């Protein structure tokens, strides 16, 4: 059995590692659920807005990147759509039975999103043949059609397609409804569920969303550019002046270090220390065969000693700085992410940074390597912890009975082979 405090520390450390791993797993599974749900057939009542391209330019063919309209174009389309709505309203007012389809070119392919418009005006049933091929999203618009106030506008306004905030999910038109306004729902009842695989290329994000997203990236880019503009010099000078005055007002202290900086520095020094120690051990363990090798070994050791001296000096400086500035540790529960640079990328304002991959294999390799690096980092940390806790135990064993031997075997296995193999101990029985 391990001593109590050692047990506590080891178990705490390992539980922490397990928790971190479990947290990753949880997040991953959550993402996986979302992704899988996206790839299944989408429920009709909650279907997406395979958003209609606005206006007469109904693109029956799927939206290829080449013809993606600019925001200016979209605005114009919006205006055009409104004009069309008005025309449709007028026309409807003229011919009540509204057998006329709205002047929307249908290119005959599977999806002409704007066919929803005519469905609003058509006699029931006419839209079926066409609309049945469109996904149930039409249903959303149709369910909204009965709403008073702005029926057509709702149908065609791209923003409202998505029915932000409207209970589009809730209502699925009943089977019997066959009136003008709900004709397409009849088609919707044909269980042609929307699947990403078949119709994914027809999707388009809602207008409001796109606007907000593009404004978002524009603003982030602006922030990044203002930071590098020439006029920033005067500001930087003023800031530096301010900081210096803050510093001098508090007395003769050195340039302020933060606890985070001290800790980072300590981490580097620790790494330096372990590297130095390892190198030294290697040199000491090596058996020089001739005088040249021995000399080289000596030079190396002297160099290592000098470096170690530097580290020690630095450590003392840090200690003095901490004492002088009365730096405390970061408060428990606080997060330094605001103040440390690699939070969400060293330069958060540098716009959406893209990572381009070209095949599943590449993506999988990348992600697998990433996990591997994370795992190795954790393993190294745990190795150091285990070494710190278990090696002293082995060293301080008094007697060497079977229990102590089995402890030693276990420790060896954990520290040297990550628990995968065990050494063998044979008792050397004197014969005779």
């Amino acid at each position, binding site marked *: 059995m391990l001593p109590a405090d050692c047990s506590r520390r080891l178990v705490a450390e390992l*539980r922490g590692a397990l928790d971190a791993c479990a947290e990753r797993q949880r997040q991953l599974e959550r*993402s996986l659920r979302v992704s899988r749900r996206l790839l299944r057939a989408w429920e009709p009542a909650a279907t997406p807005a395979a958003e209609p391209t606005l206006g007469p330019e109904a693109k029956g063919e799927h939206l290829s990147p080449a013809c993606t309209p600019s925001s200016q174009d979209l605005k114009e389309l919006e205006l055009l759509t409104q004009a069309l709505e008005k025309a449709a309203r007028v026309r409807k007012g003229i011919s009540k039975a509204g057998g006329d389809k709205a002047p929307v070119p249908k290119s005959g392919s599977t999806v002409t999103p704007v066919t929803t418009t005519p469905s609003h005006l058509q006699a029931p049933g006419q839209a079926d043949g066409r609309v049945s091929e469109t996904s149930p999203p039409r249903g959303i618009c149709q369910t909204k059609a009965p709403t008073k106030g702005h029926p057509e506008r709702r149908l065609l306004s791209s923003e409202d397609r998505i029915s932000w905030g409207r209970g589009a999910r809730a209502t699925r038109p009943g089977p019997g409804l066959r009136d003008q306004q709900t004709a397409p729902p009849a088609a919707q009842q044909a269980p042609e569920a929307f699947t990403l695989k078949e119709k994914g290329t027809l999707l388009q994000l809602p207008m409001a969303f796109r606007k907000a997203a593009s404004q*978002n990236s524009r603003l982030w880019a602006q922030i990044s550019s203002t930071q590098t503009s020439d006029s920033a010099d005067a*500001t930087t000078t003023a800031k530096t002046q301010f900081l210096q005055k803050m510093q001098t007002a*508090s007395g003769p202290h050195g340039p302020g270090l933060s606890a985070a900086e001290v800790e980072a520095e300590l981490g580097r020094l620790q790494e330096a220390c372990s590297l130095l120690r390892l190198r030294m051990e290697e040199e000491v363990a090596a058996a020089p065969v001739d005088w040249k090798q021995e000399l080289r070994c000596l030079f190396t050791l002297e160099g290592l000693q000098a470096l170690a001296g530097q580290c020690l000096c630095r450590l003392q400086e840090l200690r003095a700085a901490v004492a002088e500035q009365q730096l405390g540790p970061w408060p428990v529960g*606080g997060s330094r992410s605001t103040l440390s640079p690699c*939070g969400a990328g060293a330069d958060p304002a540098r716009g959406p940074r893209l990572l381009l991959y*070209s095949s*599943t294999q590449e993506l999988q390799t990348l992600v697998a390597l*990433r996990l591997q690096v994370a795992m190795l980092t954790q393993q190294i940390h745990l190795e150091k912890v285990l070494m710190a806790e278990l090696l002293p135990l082995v060293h301080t064993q008094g007697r060497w009975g079977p229990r102590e031997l089995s402890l030693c075997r276990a420790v060896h296995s954990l520290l040297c082979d990550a628990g995968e193999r065990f050494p063998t101990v044979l008792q050397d029985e004197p014969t005779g």
Partner: protein
Amino acid sequence: MGRQRRRVDRAAGAGSGTLPEAIAALSRALPCGPSPETFRRAKFDRPEAAPALWQLLFRVLSPVSEAGATAPPAPEAQARLVKAALRSEGYPRPALAQLPEDGSRGSRELLLALSWLLARRPLLERLLARTRVRLGDEVAVCECLGVSTGCLGTEPDPCPLQCEDLAFGRANTGLPALGLGSELHVDIRHVQWLMGKLRFQWRNLVSTQQEQCALLSKVALEDGTWGRCCCLPLPPAQPGSTLFQIHLYTWGCHSDQSLGHLSATETEVLRDPEGSQQLLQVLEQENAHLAATVEWRRRELVFWQWMVRGQSRDPAWSSALRALQETVGQELAALRWAWDQGRDPAQPHGLYRLVRSEPGAPAGRGLQAAEVIGALRSKEACLEAALRQLQGQCRRELARLMGALPGFVWISSPVR
């Protein structure tokens, strides 16, 4: 007062405009920013301005989850955390630590503290980046961000996960709440068991991750070519991968041509418009903060001049001390650089949005996966070497120890 300093320094370009406008921009840019009037009162050390500033500093210095919690801690506790955090940051003025925690006074000192934080770092940008809405399938290429961003994040999360500065795997120290009594001993076999469990969990994680990739990347390929041969994903046994599929199936949909396809997050917006409305709201809020930050950047010079003018001078120290500080600063910087040299600057950092592209596509749009793979491979090799070294060290030490024991033959396990 402030109103007298209109039209300061037009010639400077940035910083033109009035002080009130600058302060108004700052107030809008900060999360739960106090009103511009509060700032002005604080300059005059009015007591009524203190509580708002304590709250603001708490919000800035505390983690995301705390800041967004429905029940923030009591004002005294907030004040204590602010003091501790500022001390940890190296705040130079001792006056702050002496302020009463009940918020009855100290607004001027708090304003100075806020300005100090603003001056040292791009605080506003970092605050916004901390809670930035992620629309893409983001992957972090470094470990700096810890667990929260370790996986591919696809769920639209208006309140993104906190980027903890925990080294991965470092447990909380002093953890009595594990249910271990202070006198509990464990056998080493329990430790072995925990390690084994950890190994198994990692393997699990790797295979789940592989599936996620494949599913996601399906969103990104041209219709027609792939659509027919990829079937819908089945439970984990299938080698199909979610992310890949999602990318594949929505190729050509994105209005942003440089991206080309939708991410899982964006597709989710389409699938569940109602549920995603919150996302839109958060996005719009962020835009408002961003716009205010841009304006602040344009006008902040006035603010700094105002602050500098307000500071008390200490002529006895000034010049000699400044010279001393500069020299020491330079020395320390040089020393620090000597150790920083060991770090690998080539390692990419931070969060990236995953985008599928054609293999032969011209570079320059972003980071290529192949590049990252190369960097990760070399990092992996380094880490493996480091682990081997440590294990070797243990091996030698134990062999030495056991070899010295009489009556036993120690046969070490074979070195890999």
